[in-house]
């Protein structure tokens, strides 16, 4: 049992048993207690009750160092690598072979190479970590754990950042590890992946274990029912799009980042009211830079961006927002909320100046409280009251607060950047449904997402971004296969002539 400092019982009477040489899935919504359980196993958190048996012996895991010494390795969702060091240096970091007081560089490289070969990981150990792609970084993380003698390997949502091809490669390697007698704990929301590689699955809901099952004898529907306690509709009932006037026009947009690297390359597209434009793509291909320009956060660009028929150059963020634009940011903790302020204070930062909520000087506390309660109920934010600090909520509930705030202004343009990343199925569904409702009501929605299932099922038109350009655009998103999309995402395929990004009827610029 583990109780967090915000009084949340994250794990309650959870039991988990692992066999040697299996891939064991840990499945559950966000806030179900998966990460907490793993943190206890890896020594980051200490349990309030219960015991851990390792090879039949009761042990206490006091710290991550202790866990590593006992043969438990963990690959975090966010990589823990030093970008400026080489792959080999990262692998041996902290347990480096030494020659006198110096690190034996040659032996380090050799040992790193040996371990990579032993497990069939084809990587260049002399490359610098900042220069290698995400998929390879993950391999480095796995090697790091193996080098330290890990027998049990915990992977926290390893496929969240990978393309379909990279995921496939990872699975091959995980299977090899299994054959070598390693045990892998695989944490994921993605049911089809679990079906593909896991032997057994422990399903968690609300801090409790719903039992351990043989994956082979179980359908994805059954899994999702155990996970959320109700049938989740993975397909959305979608009415055909009723397109209205153009609300967002981007022409010849070029953006360089602060280091002068070209991030968005002569991009043009339109979005009309009543449709959802999905933008898929591997992270770092210019999506964030595009969003920054469209929302006014970055003024340093070439080209034209028109929001609701107004050129936004030299317009402040407030002026752009006042043209009823809502923005769900990519990184919710960094720019989407203030964790140290309470829920109410986080619900009005974009609309406290509206007449209902304030006079000339003072805020109208009573009205704000009334609305806050209403929105908390409407978006099913799990909290004790609106006075609770946002930082104390789970990821999915923080996202609900942000979405409630952004959607409550009755926007006509919504820019949703990774709106459901890392949050549970229930909250994701709520947010996706709301996006569709806004689209049906005539709102222009731009959905940037790495979740292919999401962009494919929600978008009316779908663009794939690769190196700052649209590699392809599909006017009928539902007919696109994931494999094909993956090829566009990785730049294997690229359409020379783009059709359907711009509406001819509004070539008035």
């Amino acid at each position, binding site marked *: 049992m583990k109780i967090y*400092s915000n*009084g949340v019982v994250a794990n309650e009477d959870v039991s988990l048993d692992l066999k040697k040489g299996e891939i064991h899935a840990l499945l559950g919504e966000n806030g179900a207690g998966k990460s907490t359980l793993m943190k206890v196993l890896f020594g980051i958190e200490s349990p309030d009750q219960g015991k851990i048996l390792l090879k039949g012996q009761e042990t206490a895991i006091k710290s991550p160092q202790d866990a590593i010494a006992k043969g438990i390795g963990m690959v975090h969702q966010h990589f823990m690598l030093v970008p400026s060091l080489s792959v080999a240096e990262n692998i041996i970091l902290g347990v480096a072979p030494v020659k006198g007081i110096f690190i034996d560089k040659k032996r380090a490289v050799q040992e790193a190479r040996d371990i990579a070969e032993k497990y069939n990981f084809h990587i260049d150990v002399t490359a610098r970590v900042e220069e290698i792609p995400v998929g390879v970084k993950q391999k480095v993380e796995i090697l790091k754990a193996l080098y330290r003698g890990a027998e049990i390997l915990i992977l926290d949502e390893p496929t969240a950042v990978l393309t379909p091809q990279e995921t496939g490669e990872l699975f091959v390697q995980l299977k090899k590890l299994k054959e070598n007698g390693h045990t892998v704990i695989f944490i994921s929301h993605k049911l089809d992946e679990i079906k593909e590689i896991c032997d057994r699955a422990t399903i968690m809901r609300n801090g409790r274990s719903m039992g351990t099952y043989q994956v082979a004898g179980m359908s994805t529907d059954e899994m999702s029912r155990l996970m959320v306690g109700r049938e989740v509709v993975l397909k959305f009932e979608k009415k055909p799009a009723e397109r209205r006037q153009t609300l967002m026009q981007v022409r010849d947009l070029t953006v360089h980042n602060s280091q002068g690297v070209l991030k968005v390359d002569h991009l043009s597209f339109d979005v009309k009211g009543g449709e959802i434009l999905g933008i898929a793509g591997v992270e770092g291909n210019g999506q964030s830079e595009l969003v920054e320009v469209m929302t006014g956060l970055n003024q340093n660009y070439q080209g034209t961006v028109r929001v609701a028929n107004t050129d936004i150059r030299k317009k*402040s*963020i407030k002026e752009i927002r006042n043209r009823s634009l809502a923005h769900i940011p990519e990184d919710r903790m960094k720019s989407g909320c203030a964790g140290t302020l309470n829920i109410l204070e986080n619900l009005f*930062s974009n609309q406290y100046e509206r007449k209902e909520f304030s006079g000339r*000087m003072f805020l109208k506390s009573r009205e704000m409280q009334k609305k806050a309660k209403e929105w908390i109920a409407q978006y099913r934010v799990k909290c004790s009251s609106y006075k609770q600090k946002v930082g104390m909520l789970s990821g999915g509930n923080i996202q609900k607060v942000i979405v409630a705030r952004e959607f409550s202004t009755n926007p006509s343009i919504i820019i949703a950047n990774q709106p459901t990343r890392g949050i549970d199925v229930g909250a994701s569904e709520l947010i996706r449904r709301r996006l569709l409702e806004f689209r049906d009501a005539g709102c222009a929605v731009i959905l940037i997402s790495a979740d292919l299932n999401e962009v494919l099922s929600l978008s009316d038109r779908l663009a794939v971004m690769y190196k700052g350009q649209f590699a392809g655009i599909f006017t009928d998103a539902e007919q696109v296969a994931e494999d094909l999309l993956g090829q566009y995402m990785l730049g294997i395929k690229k359409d020379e002539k783009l059709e359907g990004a711009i509406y001819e009827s509004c070539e008035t610029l």
Partner: protein
Amino acid sequence: MNRAKRFEVIRMVFAILIALLISFIIIFFVSEEPVNAIVQLVTGPFKSKRNLANVFESMIPLVFTGTGVCIMFSANQINLAGEGAFHVGGLIAAVAALKIALPAGVSPVVCLLLAAVAGAILTAIPAILKIRTEASELVSSLMINYVALWFSTFILMQFICDPATGSASYSIPDAASLPSLMRGTRIHSGIFIALLVAVLGYLFLYKTKIGYQLRIVGENEEYARYSGISIVKVILVSQLLGGFIAGLGGGVELLSPIYDRFSWTASLGYGWDAIIICTLAKKNPLYTPFAALFLAYLRTGASIMSRATDVSFEIVQITQAVIILFVVAEQFLSRYKHKMIAREAKEALKEEEAS
């Protein structure tokens, strides 16, 4: 929420008790008459009407600078020029009182307003430097305190110095002075201004639109920008207001019965004490009078003790330091807090199951 607040109070009380305990132990080591010293320290302020009055007198300037710092720190503007603003406020109040002859009712008001504006100008300099050049306000405000100190000394010596005294100004005219409230003490009407400032500071930060903007910037600047809040405005307003209040405090202090002339040629330290007040008050101006009262009590006690016994006044610095250390130490009593929370969570679980 209630639970968290209750815990904060418990933590504060423990911090104070431990700090006092450590001070007592030190007193036992250094003093020939430790019991007497401790009695003087703890009960001294209650011994006479004058002693008790001393507590309230020394509380007044702390409320001003404390509130000013609360406002600047709430916006995460670590401007330390409150010290200089207080000093310049005193100077300008003195200059105005001596150079502008006005009737009794009007004179203090004018002097105080000018003092406050002078304070605001001083703290605005680091703010403008930050907006224009991205210079850290922490460094520039720290340095500007020296400018304020020597500038004040220069003005004093050059323009308002009474040759009879050598290093103090001419006597402040009665028309400009703040009247004493009780005979035989120096408690003055400034205490009402101080309390009013604390309440207004609270209303400003927690009830107004601009206060809301300020706190959002203070907690997460990136989020404030994303929401469309003007960061530049907040940087400027918070620091202007902080300096305004500190300057006002300097003016009030100088026009009070405590001072007859402007004679501040060394730093008084109220700007630094303000950081202690701000920490104890958890950045909420409403709590600054209580924090100021506590600090003033402690210091008055220490002063009485140092006069009556062989223990020096500086012992109180140790007490202060230990309190601050424990208040800001996040991990202090965290184990107890966790147990408290775990117990409540388990009870809640049982209730849930029962129902």
